[in-house]
């Protein structure tokens, strides 16, 4: 892809007002969406991994939905929920809260598509870590909250971080739902992917150059996040960690 970037034009292109606005908006909204995912996703993952109830499978499928929905359909689903005439939107609207065409709508769209990544990473890790350490903590007198804070979460921290990174990446690239649900206005709702999409109408090469920034940001974030190493095998003695590799 780098081959198709028109390098002499690169700097002016990416420093253009619209590109900068889009990049900043994207970073801001993606970070907020990631935070939202963590807030909502951690309890969700805990419920999925640590409890069992009727309808749990359904809940898991629902959490996965945004992965399968073509993005535009996801946007439609959001509209039907949070839109002015939607399920919740009507009540919100009555309270004077308008979501459509605001930056909030962008964050919601991004969080909607990014949530499954966090929940899935975390649920998997919670299941793998198992409940043995939590049980030990409980027999030592720790309450649920203490066990969660001092045992469960630290144990799954690497998965939490990598889930958050995935969420961030997905939020950063989110396009269809934002387009459908939030609209596209420079500085308010036109994120970098929307800017790319728009540029593509007139100049596909410019679009590729802009995507390149997106990719760079994502690569940087992923690179930083992968410094958070998992705790070996979570085993008391992991001599094998230094296993010889002839």
């Amino acid at each position, binding site marked *: 892809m780098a081959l198709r970037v028109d390098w002499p034009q690169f700097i002016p292109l990416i420093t253009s007002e619209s590109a900068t606005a889009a990049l900043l908006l994207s970073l801001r909204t993606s970070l907020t969406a990631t935070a939202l995912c963590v807030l909502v996703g951690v309890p969700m993952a805990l419920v999925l991994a640590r409890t069992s109830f009727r309808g749990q499978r359904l809940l898991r499928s629902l959490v996965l939905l945004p992965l399968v929905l073509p993005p535009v359909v996801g946007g439609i689903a959001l509209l039907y929920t949070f839109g002015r005439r939607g399920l919740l939107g009507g009540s919100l609207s009555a309270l004077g809260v308008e979501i459509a065409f605001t930056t909030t709508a962008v964050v919601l769209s991004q969080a909607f598509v990014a949530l499954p990544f966090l929940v899935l990473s975390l649920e998997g890790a919670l299941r793998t870590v198992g409940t*043995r*350490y939590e*049980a*030990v*903590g*409980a*027999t*030592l*007198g*720790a*309450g649920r909250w*203490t066990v969660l804070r*001092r*045992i469960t979460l*630290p*144990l799954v*921290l690497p998965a939490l971080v990598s889930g958050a990174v995935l969420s961030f990446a997905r939020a950063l690239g989110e396009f269809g739902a934002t387009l459908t649900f939030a609209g596209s206005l420079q500085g308010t709702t036109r994120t970098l992917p929307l800017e790319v999409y728009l540029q593509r109408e007139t100049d596909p090469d410019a679009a590729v150059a802009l995507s390149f920034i997106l990719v760079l940001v994502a690569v940087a974030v992923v690179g930083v996040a992968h410094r958070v190493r998992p*705790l*070996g095998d*979570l*085993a*008391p*003695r*992991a001599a094998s*960690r230094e296993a010889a590799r002839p």
Partner: protein
Amino acid sequence: MSLTFTATLADRGFDVAFDLAPGETLAVLGPNGAGKSTLLGLLAGLLAPTAGRAELDGTVLFDVGPDRRTLTEPRHRGVSLLAQEALLFPHLTALENVAFGPRSRGVDRGTARATALSWLDRVGAADLAGRRPGHLSGGQAQRVAVARALAADPSLLLLDEPLSALDVTVAPALRTLLRDVLVDRSAIIVTHDPLDAFLLADRVLILDGGTVVESGATASVLTRPVTAFGAHLAGLNLVPGVRTADGFASADGWTVPLTDTAPEDMSLAHSAPENSSLAHSAPEGASLALAVRPGLVTVSRSDTTTQGTACRAAEVDDVEHRGDLVRLHAGGLAADVAPSDVVALGIVPGSRLFLAFRHEDASIYPL
């Protein structure tokens, strides 16, 4: 802190009941897979019984039946478990692991660390305070786990083979530490070492196949074992038999007269003399057991039956070198003999020889 316990766990064939008086320590012994860890798991709340009820000093730990299902949360049980695997929290240092219990009880950070450090010191692991469990050796991890269980200061302390990975220089010290700690505390300790039971426990429970096969005061169970496993534990030979008109007779030919004058206490520590008189007054045909120490069984090439001695021919099954002694296994008995005798008698597995013990060296009691 009295404990009552009755529980079944269907899929492990577990069905056990026992009581423990306040401040008593119970040693749970038994072969692998007997249900020892299962017992602790049920008490700690890691396993839910199929049915049963346990109460610790008035608090119901669990109460499960066809029409009820109370399972108190582990943290409200006042029970702390040192499991068979150390299971130290991998993300915390040794010190933080030990401080976890005090911190959970609401002790402030500084005090908790001080407490933790003093426990680490008592198990001889103070120099490991800053290490993560991944960087500890097997025995080091085990010691930290012991410290963690003790620091939690529970009403009931459960220890699953706490000394198994420890080296010989530390094990006695830790045993002494446990004895100090357990003095005024209700505790249950699972072990394969009869010494631990002798030194640490007031009472002994022997499990096999998920059920209780022997139980009672430590001294009586270990000096008057009624099962082969109990005899093994006590380092005794156990010969099951019946009361005959003359005294004791076993299926494989041992006969020992029971007279009023037969000395009963063979200097086995804490033995209960009333048992032998009970054997004496047992009706003909009643089940009896005869116990004799391997060191008091003698070996010879010819029949040495005399007045006051029981003697039988047997084939040697196995010869074990035990330091400066040799232990022979023959005809269901073990006999400790000097290496020089082994050479003199030319004993190898398969040799035929005569085993003998003096009537007065045998302890006979009803089953």
